């Protein structure tokens, strides 16, 4: 995990930064992602409830990737903090794969629950597919939203 703080322009910018985490695409590593997000979110004035929402959202994102092909590639997570928001990028690094987030959002029954929860708990969600770098999900949570 690395952290590169952006240039500080004043007190509020001490809350700005980027943290990157790469975990194996396996179930036992999801808790590490969850705890890391909680620690990062704690740096911002999120409520306890918001932090629980963020923990669930990151876990659901990782789980979505894992359930589409456990053990292949890695899950790359990048968190960008600003004084008023946290942006979480979750990348399924396997190339030439379908957009697992889109597939799950269209799934019926329990298969679609994870992506549904992400959409319900985050303020903004989008996903993109690149044939070389994989599928990326971006989740944004704003303080007080």
């Amino acid at each position, binding site marked *: 995990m690395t952290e590169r703080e952006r240039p500080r322009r004043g007190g509020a910018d001490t809350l700005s930064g980027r943290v990157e985490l790469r975990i194996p695409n396996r179930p036992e590593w*999801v*808790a590490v992602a969850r705890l890391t997000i909680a620690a990062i979110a704690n740096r911002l004035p999120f409520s306890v409830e918001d932090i629980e929402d963020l923990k669930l959202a990151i876990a659901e994102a990782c*789980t979505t990737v894992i*359930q589409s092909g456990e053990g292949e590639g890695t899950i790359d997570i990048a968190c960008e903090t600003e004084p008023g928001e946290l942006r979480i990028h979750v990348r399924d690094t396997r190339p030439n794969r379908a957009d697992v987030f889109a597939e799950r959002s269209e799934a019926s029954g329990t298969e679609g629950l*994870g992506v549904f929860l992400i959409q319900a*708990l985050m303020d903004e969600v989008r996903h993109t597919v690149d044939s070389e770098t994989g599928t990326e999900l971006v989740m944004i949570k704003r303080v007080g939203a």
Partner: protein
Amino acid sequence: MDIKVNVRESNDDAYVVELGGEIDVYTSPKVKDAITELIDQGHYNLVINLEKVRYIDSTGLGVLIGGLKRVREHGGSVNLVCTNPQIKKIFDITGLVKIFGIFDDEVGAQKALA
């Protein structure tokens, strides 16, 4: 990360599955195994106590839904015990409050099975 599963008989026709810890993609198979074993043994009225659960995600919800579907095929039911606001919120968002009986304590959950 931990999950604790404790199964006990509560009365003539109901079993309590008491869960503790975190239920996610890694730990939910253990919960599924416990519920499946009970159903395979012919126990179709279950109380699942989530009071000591700190966290549950969609894989945990999927296990509970799967259990409910199976016991309903045999005329049984699953009632939950849950007072944690964050976990209740997840049941609320997903609409699962409409398919599970959710109670504040085991006594209420067991009575509703009868």
